[in-house]
């Protein structure tokens, strides 16, 4: 069972506030949800909406058709019709009536002299629609507001609740999940992964949609004993992270595509100087400024090939909020094990989606530093034969002197132009790529085992595809999806276990050029025959993918 609530209006009309209250109520009921902000790159005005899909099973995909639409102004009320599910209800703060439209206006509501009263009445109506008790509204206060305002808000919500309760609407029951759920978005999950991994330093330049990572870490820096610094630009951010990482502190930076373009310069430095660096690129549509607050998966090949020269790197693309936590944690261990940059690719959809999910389990997590603390005579920081565990940094012992260098360098880190040194360094960097493969996770196969159609997806799209496969198979289709979270390096035989005679391979990506499909073909020689792409700045939906698949299946 799944219900989708849409809250729409202009920036500044309280969409976020209303959404947060609804999220809180849903969480307190112990239900799963995924809430996604669809907002324009502006502070006031425009047309924004938040979509909240509530369910008794984990949610990976939003639904574009609203079962309940809360319209906070006239424009939203007018556009609501186009976004409704069958039998969907519209509640509006405007004085409008019609079939399926409920106006929240009343004399009692007008008597509450508070600009948010309409929005709060909408929150009350949503509670009534979801079948919650009026009691659930009692927690709707915010510490930052005065008691008077909180009181007015509670009254407005109660009015909305009573008003909607009296309106005929479908009743539905959701099963309550067994475990208590945590509520967070993808950016916070990445930040928590970094904290769990023992990151001491985070340095970034503000850029939507990545800023949430820095904001969370900054807010928590005292209790986590971290230092979080806003850099003057993204080159500085990554250089500072490298500076800290090369001095023994786990360090990270994060940005979006435009900022990553600047970081590219520093990326190669981390690689050649074998500094363990973790960076997150929260993708948004490009090129250039693109669509700052929207989503796309078009930086994959850029992230894979960014920088001059050839070197080893790891690219990971979490498929869900929960995966974002565990993957970020792993990124730090991998970075220090292989002394390479590890790049985490998320996107605005994952970053800004708030979900309830099972509490993260730290029992099995172990921080592994791969350093050499004992003094060594004639220590060679860049020993060409030694790959794992030979790392020292300044101050780790009382005798070593460590050189970190951006040139082709000898085993001590000093500049060299010798042929044999050049070759040895190159071979070391290339051999790391092979070694890393043993530590990367295989893609996850979901769906039926006797599939006729195999969908390929990576990153946040893989979460959505998972639900699409379920919908398709519920309708009698035989489909499966191969979900990639660990992207690169990629094994030549990665598809061997999944390619069967007669199956149709469908590549699903949030870009126009099938970048992952190209990567698969480049590394494995296997080419997809069909593709489903979305590049309008909006996330895929399970239903949308299902519909595209039905066309492909019926060809």
């Amino acid at each position, binding site marked *: 069972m799944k219900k989708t609530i849409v809250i729409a209006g202009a920036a500044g009309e309280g969409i976020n506030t209303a959404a947060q209250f609804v999220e809180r109520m849903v969480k307190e009921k112990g239900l799963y949800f995924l809430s996604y902000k669809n907002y324009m790159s502006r502070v006031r005005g425009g047309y924004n909406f938040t979509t909240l899909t509530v369910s008794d099973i984990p949610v990976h995909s939003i639904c574009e058709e609203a079962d309940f639409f809360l319209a906070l102004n006239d424009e939203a009320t007018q556009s609501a019709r186009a976004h409704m599910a069958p039998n969907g209800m519209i509640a509006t703060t405007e004085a409008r009536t019609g079939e399926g439209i409920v106006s929240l206006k009343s004399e009692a509501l007008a008597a509450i002299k508070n600009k948010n009263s309409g929005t709060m009445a909408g929150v009350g109506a949503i509670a009534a629609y979801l079948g919650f008790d009026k009691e659930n509204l009692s927690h709707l206060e915010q510490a930052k507001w005065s008691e008077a305002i909180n009181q007015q808000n509670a009254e407005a919500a109660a009015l909305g609740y009573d008003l909607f309760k009296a309106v005929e609407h479908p009743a539905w029951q959701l099963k309550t999940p067994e475990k208590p759920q945590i509520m967070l978005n993808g950016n916070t999950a990445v930040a928590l992964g970094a904290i769990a991994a*023992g990151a001491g330093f985070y340095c970034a330049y503000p850029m939507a949609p990545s800023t949430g990572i820095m904001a969370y870490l900054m807010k928590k820096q005292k209790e986590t004993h971290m*230092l979080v610094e806003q850099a003057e630009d993204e080159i500085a951010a990554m250089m500072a992270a490298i500076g*800290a990482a090369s001095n023994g502190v786990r360090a990270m930076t994060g940005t979006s595509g435009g900022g990553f373009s600047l970081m590219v310069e520093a990326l190669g430095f981390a690689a050649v100087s074998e500094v363990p660096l973790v960076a997150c690129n929260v993708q948004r549509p490009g090129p250039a400024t693109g669509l700052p607050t929207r989503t796309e998966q078009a930086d994959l090949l850029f992230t894979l090939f960014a920088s001059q020269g050839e070197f080893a790197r790891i690219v990971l693309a979490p498929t869900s909020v929960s995966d974002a936590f565990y993957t970020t944690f792993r990124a730090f261990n991998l970075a220090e094990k292989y002394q390479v940059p590890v790049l985490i690719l998320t996107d605005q959809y994952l970053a800004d989606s708030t979900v309830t999910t099972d509490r993260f389990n730290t029992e099995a997590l*172990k921080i592994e530093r791969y350093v050499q603390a004992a003094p060594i005579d004639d220590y060679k920081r860049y020993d060409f034969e030694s790959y794992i565990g030979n790392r020292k940094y300044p*101050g780790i012992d009382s005798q070593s002197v460590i050189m970190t260098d951006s040139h082709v360098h000898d085993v001590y880190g000093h500049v060299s132009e010798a042929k044999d040194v050049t070759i040895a360094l190159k071979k070391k960097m290339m051999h790391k790529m092979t070694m890393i493969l043993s530590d990367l996770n295989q893609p996850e196969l979901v769906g039926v085992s006797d599939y006729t159609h195999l969908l390929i997806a990576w990153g946040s799209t893989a979460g959505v595809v998972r639900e699409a496969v379920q919908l398709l198979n519920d309708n009698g289709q035989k489909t499966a999806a191969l979900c990639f979270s660990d992207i690169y390096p990629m094994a030549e035989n990665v598809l061997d276990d999944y390619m069967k005679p007669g199956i149709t391979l469908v590549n699903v990506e949030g870009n126009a050029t099938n970048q992952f499909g190209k990567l698969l073909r480049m590394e494995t020689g296997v080419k997809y025959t069909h593709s489903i792409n979305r590049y309008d700045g909006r996330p895929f939906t399970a239903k949308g993918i299902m519909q595209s698949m039905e066309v492909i299946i019926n060809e």
Partner: protein
Amino acid sequence: MNNPFKLNTKTTWCPGCGNFSILECLNQTLESLSLTPQDVLVVSGIGQAAKLPHYLHAHGMNTLHGRAVPAAMGAHVANPKLKLILTSGDGDTYGEGGNHLLHGIRRNLDIVHMVHDNQVYGLTKGQGSPTTAFGQVTRLQYDGMKSDPLNPMAFAISIGCGFVARSFSGDPEHLKSVLKAAMAYKGYALIDILQPCVSFNQVNTFKWYKDRVFKLPETYDPHDKVRAFEMAQLFGDEGIPIGILYEETKTDFLGRFNHLEKPLVQYDRSPKAVESLLDELL
């Protein structure tokens, strides 16, 4: 006893280059402060001057062109116990790295930043630098420089740098005394070190500098910002003052983060750190 910082490495500097004197002065100053190579981290960007970390025995980071300051920031926050020295040229510091210099000073990193200022690009062979005089002919700018030169001292004073000094590679005793004062200073110490480029700058030669530099008188008060700004305007035929132009006590970068009790690198960390944060999300 031999100076522990000295390395008998071949350099790629031209004979007669001011860098030799700067390196020697740095080695001697570090030794005079009873530091060991394990106590010191020398960070640089790219360029002839920036090769210096390879030529002494201490921890080193030879980073990217213009990017030494942010790399030094990261190193410093990780382990502030290391005495941090940044050594790079005028193109690296004032050109490619200008933005980082500005913000490094704003942060007041505890660092000694030595700028080897020869008013020309060396490693790329003779193009104009941010400090090359207006109209000066270079190997590239055959018709003369079309931009006004940057005044690094006035720039540093105006944006709040707490230690602004100038010295000359041709006066080692002076350079060492300024270096020593910079090392004792807690905060961003910028030293613009005038040096000849024997290969690519035929205007600002050893003699050119020698004839123009003069030591600030003992009566000079480096705490007078307006006076310092005035002195910073002097350059060229009217004479070039060397010494500490401006000094001011202010809280350094890490002093502004009072939640840290010890260097970041010394914290033991555990995945359990997220448990209380996860509780907040319940």
